[in-house]
């Protein structure tokens, strides 16, 4: 066996064994990297330490804590609640209206927050009790909210795109822009799916909200609605880098929460800082561990080895894309979005590029697929959050999310067959 093949075997075996037994993933990645270094005759503990640090010593990655902080401030400062109130005022009264509220709120929130988890937490805390009260089946409601929050990492801003961009050296701004249209398509697909799911429900409708009240609630949400304009507009026009956009978003949310809505006090700010820093540290420690593994992946030139094995597939990009997406769906059942990006993007992207697939398109498809993994059992963090916040048994959420999961897989297929849906708007907007 060649050294490269051996390194590949060690990589796969290390991942399966170390992660399989339930070890902390960051250390599992570190040890896998160490084992690869050993078989490649590249052993030195200094390289392990150096690469762990280098893995997080990156300015673009600072966007991650800033976006998480912005999300925390939005939730504790009443911004998320105002968005949901507004959506409810407009469509709450139609049949199944709270479902459309959930979808609309998911799209709006995703344009402000960088992570699916923050969106899932906000929506299941506010919307799920409402849907319960109005007699919506709790499983379907929870499933819809879980599915809706998957849009979070697709519409910019997005932590997942930041990590993907840094890991694979892809333009973060381009990735952000590539997510807008697919995110909206996902929202529309959810509306269609919800209409189908609705048929089997008997629901009482809420009375329509008078126009004056609608306008009042929209006015209350206007500060929140300006946020995506600042983030996306500022970044697109080159006023801010993605990192700066993230910090501006956090600052904006802070000002609104403290001085406009006045729903937050300084101790809340301290708590938000601690929570954001802790969450970031856990995610970034994983980045650090993955940096060791990906350093060794680069040295072993795994992508070339794999490309060699894939042989004729490389000449058929569409088929290759289908294969890679199926592999990712399988990976997504067991792995979270971030580890999926950190571990597999550096291996898969070079293969895709060799087959002539556009790196930004691939990045979007990769992140979309990984985000769908957030709601596939057995390991789906968004499912956990919705079940946890909504105090529901896990199997109910899983049952409820199924129709929407199938919808997303159809959307994914659509983007494979018609990549123009993704690439055309990017070309137009850049």
């Amino acid at each position, binding site marked *: 066996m060649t050294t490269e093949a051996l390194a590949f075997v060690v990589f796969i075996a290390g991942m399966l064994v170390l*992660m399989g037994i339930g070890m902390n993933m960051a*250390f599992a990645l*570190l040890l896998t990297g*160490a084992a690869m270094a050993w078989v490649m005759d590249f052993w030195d*503990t200094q390289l*392990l330490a150096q690469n762990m640090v280098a893995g997080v010593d990156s300015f673009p990655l600072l966007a991650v804590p800033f976006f998480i902080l912005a999300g925390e401030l939005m939730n504790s400062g009443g911004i998320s609640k105002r968005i949901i109130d507004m959506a409810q005022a407009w469509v709450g009264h139609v049949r199944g209206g709270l479902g459309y509220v959930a979808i609309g709120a998911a799209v709006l929130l995703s344009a402000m927050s960088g992570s699916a988890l923050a969106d899932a937490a906000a929506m299941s805390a506010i919307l799920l009790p409402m849907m319960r009260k109005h007699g919506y089946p709790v499983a379907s409601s929870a499933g819809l909210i879980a599915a809706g929050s998957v849009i979070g990492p697709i519409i910019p801003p997005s932590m997942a795109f930041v990590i993907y961009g840094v890991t694979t050296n892809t333009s973060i701004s381009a990735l952000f822009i590539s997510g807008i249209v697919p995110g909206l398509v996902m929202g529309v697909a959810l509306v269609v799916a919800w209409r189908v799911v609705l048929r089997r429900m008997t629901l009482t409708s809420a009375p329509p909200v008078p126009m004056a009240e609608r306008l009042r609630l929209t006015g209350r949400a206007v500060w929140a609605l300006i946020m995506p304009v600042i983030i996306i507009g500022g970044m697109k026009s080159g006023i801010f880098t993605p990192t700066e956009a993230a910090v501006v978003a956090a600052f904006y949310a802070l000002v609104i929460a403290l001085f406009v809505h006045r729903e937050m006090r300084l101790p809340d700010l301290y708590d938000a800082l601690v929570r954001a820093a802790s969450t970031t*540290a856990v995610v970034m*420690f994983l980045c650090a561990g993955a940096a060791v593994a990906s350093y060794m992946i680069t040295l072993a030139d795994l992508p070339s080895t794999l490309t060699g094995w894939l042989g004729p597939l490389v000449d058929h990009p569409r088929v290759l894309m289908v294969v890679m997406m199926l592999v990712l769906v399988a990976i997504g059942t067991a792995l979270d979005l971030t580890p999926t990006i950190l571990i597999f993007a550096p291996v898969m992207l070079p293969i895709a590029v060799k087959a002539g697939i556009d790196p930004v398109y691939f990045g979007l498809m990769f992140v979309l697929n990984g985000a769908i993994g957030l709601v596939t059992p057995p390991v789906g963090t968004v499912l*956990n959050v919705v079940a946890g916040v909504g105090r529901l048994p896990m199997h109910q959420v899983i049952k409820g999310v199924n129709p929407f999961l199938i919808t997303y897989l159809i959307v994914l297929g659509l983007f494979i067959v018609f990549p123009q849906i993704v690439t055309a708007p990017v070309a137009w907007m850049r």
Partner: protein
Amino acid sequence: MKTFLTRGAEALLALCLAAMVLCVFGNVVLRYGFDSGINATEELSRLLFVWMVFLGATAAYPVGQHMAFTSLVGTLRDRPRAFAAATLVIRLLVLMACVLLGWGAWQQVVVGLDSHSVVLGYPVALLPLPALLCSVAIGLMALVEIAQRTPLDLGHAVDME
């Protein structure tokens, strides 16, 4: 004692993040408001970020917040012997990772004492230092867990069922 340490760590984490926010936001304000910038902000915010990550990772270990795939080991819960064995293996592997990381970080700290960062001129040793501290702390915690046979924290993924 534990709460004191936890509180201290939390305060430091909040401080790091607040300082990073001020650095980066301050730079934006300076650029558009005053047409200038501080070169130190980038270097400083990156250094703070590295410290925040390793500090937060250390604080996350005892409360079982690190991402792990516990579904498989969770199925062993009803077989105490096998579960204890798996738990021990995991902790020994964590300990091994800490030893490797700590040893490497220590060497890099020594190397970095003599080199200086460009803008602020801080010793480059400050970059691997948090990795060293983190590996020592987590290594010690893993040792204590092994000695006390603390049951493995399976996280919320399994509790929920």
